[in-house]
Structures are given as C-alpha cells and as structure tokens.
C-alpha cells in the first residue's frame, strides 16, 4: 500500500466527516445548539435506503433525502422552545432526542443490523496508475467537494446565506435589522439535512450494516472533530470534521492489523494533545480587535 493510496482514502473519509461536521456547525451557528441527534438524521436516511432496497435507485434516494429532511424539520420544531433556554438544557434535550430516536429505531427494526445494498457496485475498484481505488472513494471526494463548495456559495452569495452568517455572528443585531430567526434556523436545518442525506448514501456504500446506533457512532467522532476544529466558526468546525476523518483513515492504515482495536484510543489521544496545545480548537483563531473607536 502506497502513501498516495492512504492519502486518497483519507481525503474521501475526511470529506464525509466534514459534511457531517458542517451540518452540526450550520445549526450551531444560528441557534447555539449542539445537536447530538444529528446522527439520527443519518440513521433515518440509512433505514430509508434499507426499506427501499429492492426498489429503483431513484426511489431509494428520494426516500433517503425525504426522510432526513422531514426528520430535520421536525427536530427544528421540537427544538424551537429551547431558543431562550440555557446551553445545558439544549444539550440535554438533544441527547434525549437522540436516545429517543435510537429507541424508536430499535423497536421498529430490532437490534440486529441489516445490510443496505444501494449503489453497492460503487465498491468495485478502479486502477489509476499504481493506485487501486474504489469508485465510492472517488465519488465521495467529488460529491464531498461539490457539497462543501455549494454550501459555501449559498452562504456567500444568497440573501438567506448572508442572514445566516449575520445571525451566527451577532444574533441580536441581526434580529434588530429584521432578520427572522425562524427563517434562518429552518434553513440551517434544511441545509444540514440535505448534506447529511448525501453523506448517508455514500457512507452506507462503505458501511452497509445499518443498526439503530448507525448515525450515533458516526456523529461522536464528527462532534469531536467539530470541537477540535473550533465550534464557533463553520469553516473551522468543518475542517475539524475533515481532520478527524482523515486521521481515522490514516491511523487505520498505519496501525498494525492487531493494533486496530486501539484506533479510537490513538485518535482520542491525538485530540487530547491538540486541545492541550490549542484549547480554542485547531483552526480557531484568536479574535482580532475589531471594535474600533
């Protein structure tokens, strides 16, 4: 296995984690809420793909996007009363929603995992020079880059994107200018959902075994990435997600086969080191003295 091979795989996984992290960051930006139940969006998408296994691809994709978007908008409604509460209340509530949804999945589908077969042909490998790369890796890189760029463009160029950025920087002033909190929050959930649904499709190709804790297991490292990157800025949160995915893939390749069980240990050791050196996050920056007299 060459270094390049490892890098390509790591970039692909990094981009998928970046998508998940960006979704968490988008919602946090406008609502100051860390949505622990973000993973259940992925789980919902994965079960939607599972239930439409035998149907045409288009139906499966529509079901996945539909389920994730519907659940995200429902979460927005449930979280609405939290806007005026403390961060602790928010955090505990999103935890509760996460566990509730996992329990619902457990009741509905049972604890045993089932395999999603959608787009499994993407697991075939293609040779590029000396490299043997699975199609899903290439598609993940392409789709990941596309979605990150598209989201950046929406935030930079559209009116609602500008309002989201303003609300994330200074919610009170945004409100005083007439920005509707409900509009930007709903749009953030919508954007996060679309991106999560795309990530789900690509993730289920690589990890087809769907269980009630499918998304939860993915979101924990993504959340760690968000914190490592820096929660207060969308770019740093997304980069943090990328870094965690990238590090996971690299460690998975570098560690000897019998050392793989220590992957999480190695990863969290890395996280502790990063936070010791840069408590504000790897990509967080010290605030410039903006206020001028």
């Amino acid at each position, binding site marked *: 296995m060459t270094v390049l091979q490892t890098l390509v795989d790591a970039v692909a996984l990094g981009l998928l984690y970046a998508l998940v992290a960006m979704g968490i960051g988008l919602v946090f930006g406008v609502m100051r809420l860390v949505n622990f139940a973000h993973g259940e969006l992925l789980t919902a998408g994965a079960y939607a793909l599972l239930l439409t296994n035998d149907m045409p691809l288009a139906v499966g994709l529509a079901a996945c996007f539909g389920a994730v978007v519907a659940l995200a908008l429902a979460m927005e409604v449930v979280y609405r009363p939290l806007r005026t509460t403390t961060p602790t209340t928010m955090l505990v509530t999103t935890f509760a929603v996460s566990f509730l949804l996992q329990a619902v999945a457990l009741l509905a589908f049972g604890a045993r995992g089932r395999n999603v077969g959608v787009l499994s042909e993407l697991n075939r490998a293609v040779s590029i020079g000396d490299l043997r790369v699975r199609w899903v890796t290439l598609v993940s890189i392409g789709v990941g880059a596309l979605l990150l760029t598209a989201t950046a463009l929406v935030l930079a160029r559209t*009116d609602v994107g*500008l*309002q989201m*950025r*303003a609300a994330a*920087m*200074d919610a*009170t*002033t*945004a*409100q*005083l*200018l*007439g*920005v*509707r*909190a409900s509009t930007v929050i709903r749009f953030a959930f919508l954007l996060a959902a679309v991106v999560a649904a795309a990530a789900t499709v690509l993730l289920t190709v690589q990890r087809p075994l769907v269980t009630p804790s499918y998304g939860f297991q993915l979101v924990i490292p993504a959340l760690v990435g968000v914190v490592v990157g820096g929660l207060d800025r969308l770019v740093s949160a997304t980069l943090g997600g990328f870094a965690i995915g990238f590090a996971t893939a690299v460690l998975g390749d570098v560690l000897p086969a019998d050392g793989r069980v220590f992957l999480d240990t190695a990863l969290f050791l890395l996280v502790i080191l990063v936070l010791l050196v840069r408590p504000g996050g790897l990509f967080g920056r010290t605030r*410039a003295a*903006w*206020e*001028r*007299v």
Partner: protein
Amino acid sequence: MPDAMLQIRDLELRYAGVPAVRGLTLEVGRGEVVGLVGPNGAGKSSTLLAIMGMVPPYRGEILLEGRPLAGRKTEAIVRSGVALVPERRHIFPELTVEENLRLGLVGRRSRDGASDDLDRVAALFPVVRDARHRAAGVLSGGQQQQLAIARALVARPDLLLLDEPSLGLAPAVVDGVFEALAEVRAGGVTILLVEQRAQFAVGFADRTHVLANGELRLTLSPADAGDSERITAAYFGA
C-alpha cells in the same frame, strides 16, 4: 403638533424586578426630531429596545402611528418602518461594508426602489461605496457609525432610533455625523435621538427630554443648547 408617529405612555421597564424606566410618557410627531438625554443608566437604551420589541414593558404601552406594539416581534416592528442604530454601532466587522448594507435591506417592506436608496445613502456617506468590498471592521469608528446609520436608512424607516451616535467619536467626527443626520431629517424621517452627551442632542432636536433614574426630569428646546447649567442641573436631579 403634527400627528403622532410614536407615543410612549406610562412606560415601566424592569430587569430582574428592578425598574430601569418608570412612568415614561413621551410623544414624537411625524417628521419631528426628539432628543432623549441623561446620564449612563438612566434607561435611555432600554427605552429604545422596548420600542424595538426586545424588552417587554412591565407596564404602560408603546404605540406606533396609533397602533400598540405590544406582543409584536422585533422582525415585525422593523417591517412597520422602525429602524435602530444601536449603541456601539454593532456593525458586522467580518462582513464587507456592502454585506452590512444588504442586511439593512432585510427590514424593508418592499424591495422596490432599493437601489435608489442605496445610491442615496452612498451620496450621504461616500465611504459605504468607496470601501464596499472591505471588511467593515477595518473602518474607523466614525466610518463605522456612518455605516450603521446607512444600514438603518436603507431599510427605509419612517422612524429612526439613534442610540448614542456620538459615542467614542472625536468632536469633529461627531459634527460630520450630525450634518448627515440633518440631511436625513430634511428627507422627512422622524428621529428619536438618544445621547449621553446632551449638548449634541439639545442643539439638534426639536425638543429634548432629560431622563434620569428612569424618570423624565425636564424638557429642553434648542434655545437651551447653550444653557449648560440647566442641563447639568437636570442630570443631577435638581
């Protein structure tokens, strides 16, 4: 007295049970400029935030063009034609000057004529055009104040609330800001001007109320602008 744009009747505001404003009654007629001065903590900013629907009144009422604002959200009040230039400007330092102005457009009732209004504020404050692609945070304090006023004006308000536009600015810069405000007033915009530095407000406004300890103490006319003894006395509760 022209017909009333803003009426505040017996307003009481409390923070955690402690009164910040008590029994405040005042009226701003259409096209008028009314000043509200007083020492720090007198309740001036709280009054403006109550008009914007950010602080719920404990007692009393606020009427805009005769209609009570009680229970209306800030976003709706903005769209009824009220714009606030907040204390310390609160521009978005990381956004460009142009993006800051675009955010001002959010509160418009209609996008018709928006580009004319953008041209108009650019004529009034050339910096918003000259520096449009720069981060607002790199502007000087005076330029940031101009941007904050321009951002409020592009919402095309009928009533402009200004919270300490002179704060932190050198006197020469303040003169420039007030020259621009004179043009805004000439354009028919009603203004409620809050100032800690009373001399700026008293000379500019048609009437200036002195607020101390949450209560109205005195009303001054432009003729009193030179009478610093009277202003000082009102501040210190004579």
